[in-house]
């Protein structure tokens, strides 16, 4: 059996803050295969973005610190990689898209320059990015990178890409900028794409286009995607799998239909109850009581226990282990909910 595309095991991360050391990731486990789109969901501050940044090793240390954990990309351990080798992976094998398209493009450089720079950086490690087997001379390389960039802009649906290469970011709308960012993330032909709330800042109609674009890219290139979001609607529409995070742990994961159809963890259930649907009766919408726990002094055992209606004394004894709850469906809870969702 070949190694999975991405395998995160027991990832711990602490952040030094004014109040002390916060345990922001507490043994995250996640496996992503090619062709899968994993939705990573949870409240703000649950560690989903930090998980994404940790994969690319973009969390600065200090203030961050990794006491333990393993991140493997096709069997290659990333946590032990020297910085140069890690930089070579970024943009080439791991692409990233961030939330706010207005702030993630360099305002003082042309779109074309930014795309070409990424393409050249990726081509330095893999000349096939430019459609060649060997690295050509600098001028030819730049011309090839330009050609690839124009193609990429066309692929993400930018009209008149040749002319748009000369534009500056501020001349683009939010949706167009996000397309450019996607083009930048994909131009190095990554195997793993991490998209951190790529549609949160966009209109709903543009959101749908961007998600469709992402889906198309996955099926065309057979890549794996981690889609970080707090929008369960986006997850059910776009993702094949979903992992629910709470206070630095993955508490439930599995195929999208399984997890969202039969959520087992009380937290997942509560998250879903907080979304209005057409069937929701007026006043039946439920918010989640309480707040995310203090991560400097986290509660012992299950971190959700203080907010959980089903918690018992054993919940505080230790972190509950993952256990099977259906086909590929796992849940980290001592008292998972057995009855179906809309009871």
């Amino acid at each position, binding site marked *: 059996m070949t190694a999975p595309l991405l395998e995160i095991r027991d990832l711990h991360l602490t952040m030094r*803050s*004014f*109040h002390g050391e*916060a345990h*922001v990731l507490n043994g995250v486990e996640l496996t992503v295969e090619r062709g899968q789109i994993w939705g990573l969901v949870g409240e703000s501050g649950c560690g989903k973005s930090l998980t994404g940044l940790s994969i690319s090793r973009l969390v600065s240390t200090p203030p961050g610190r990794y006491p333990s954990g393993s991140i493997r990309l096709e069997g290659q351990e990333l946590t032990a990689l020297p910085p140069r080798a890690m930089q070579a992976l970024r943009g080439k094998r791991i692409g990233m898209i961030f939330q706010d398209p207005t702030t993630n493009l360099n305002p003082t450089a042309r779109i074309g320059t930014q795309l070409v720079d990424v393409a050249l950086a990726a081509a330095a490690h893999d000349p096939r990015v430019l459609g060649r087997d060997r690295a050509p001379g600098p001028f030819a390389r730049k011309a090839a990178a330009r050609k690839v960039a124009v193609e990429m802009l066309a692929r993400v649906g930018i009209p008149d890409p040749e002319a748009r290469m000369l534009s500056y970011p501020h001349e683009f709308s939010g949706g167009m900028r996000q397309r450019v960012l996607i083009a930048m993330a994909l131009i190095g032909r990554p195997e793993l794409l991490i998209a951190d709330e790529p549609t949160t800042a966009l209109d709903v109609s543009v959101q749908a286009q961007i998600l469709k674009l992402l889906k198309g890219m996955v099926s065309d290139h057979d890549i794996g995607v981690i889609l970080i979001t707090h929008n369960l609607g986006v997850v059910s529409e776009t993702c094949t799998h979903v992992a629910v995070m709470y206070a630095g742990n993955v508490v439930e994961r599995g195929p999208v239909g399984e997890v969202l159809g039969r959520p087992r963890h009380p937290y997942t259930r509560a998250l879903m109850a907080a979304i209005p649907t057409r069937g929701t009766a007026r006043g039946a919408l439920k918010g989640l009581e309480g*707040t*995310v726990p203090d*991560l*400097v002094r986290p509660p012992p055992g299950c971190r959700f226990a203080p907010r959980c209606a089903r918690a018992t004394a054993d919940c505080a004894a230790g972190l509950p282990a993952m256990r099977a709850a259906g086909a590929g469906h796992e849940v980290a809870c001592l008292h998972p909910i057995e009855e179906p969702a809309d009871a």
Partner: protein
Amino acid sequence: MTDVPVSAPRNEGLARMLYRFRQSRLSMIGAVMVALVLLFAVFGPVLAPYPEHVAGGVDTAARFQPPSPAHPFGTNELGQDVLSLTMAGTTVSVLAGFGVVLIGAVIGTVVGAVAGYVGGWTDEVLMRFTDLTLTIPGLILAMAIAAALGPGFQNMVLAISLSWWPGYARLVRGEVLAAREEVYVTAARATGAGPGRILFRHVLPNCVSPIIVKMSLDMGFAILTVAGLGFIGIGVRPPTPEWGTLLSNARSYMPDYWWTAMAPGAAMFVAVFGFNLLGDGLRDILDPKGRR
């Protein structure tokens, strides 16, 4: 990032102050230097080892003596102890610097507050005038006014002040414009407070800390300007000891009697350095917005 609940608010306030205190170790050094300068400004003529030289006494037998235990910075062309003159010169420099900054701040605050609060044409006229004054090099303007007014301490302070206020006018106008939009000012207006009351009770108090920060940052440069005028030959006349005049005097005896320049030059540097360090630290603590 993560919303970490606050554990104990009172401890935190204290901890934060301590944190800032530690951060601004430099401003503590600056404060010590400033304290030393102020000490000399008040007691300089008394503390000076040769008070008779400060009063204008000469000792031609001991002219141009190199540094020695008796005269750590040597003596000048009149046999006066350079250290004593320099210590006594602190008074004029610090007093003049303070006068300039104070008068400049008062004029600037009035102009800025009126412009910002009244708005309209008044604002337009006052600010255009401010901008114009800013385009004239401060030193040349001060020199021209000082030369026209004639020599003397008050004239010199007045001349520099008249080139000093535009910065304050712009600062205060900006603050007033910002404060005018604040909810509490609207609330005060709603309760029927008059414009004067609003300006002095609600708007100007908010400008105090940026003004103080600017004044402390300006002190050093004001002292430099005073010394510059003295160096050129406008300002306080001998025998009143003044750093710029002392330095300009020493210049004629270079390089053979180089020590005559060292004490006044170093004193200027120390005073300005101290005020700049202190001002920088004050800005970080009092006016975090202005941190740049």
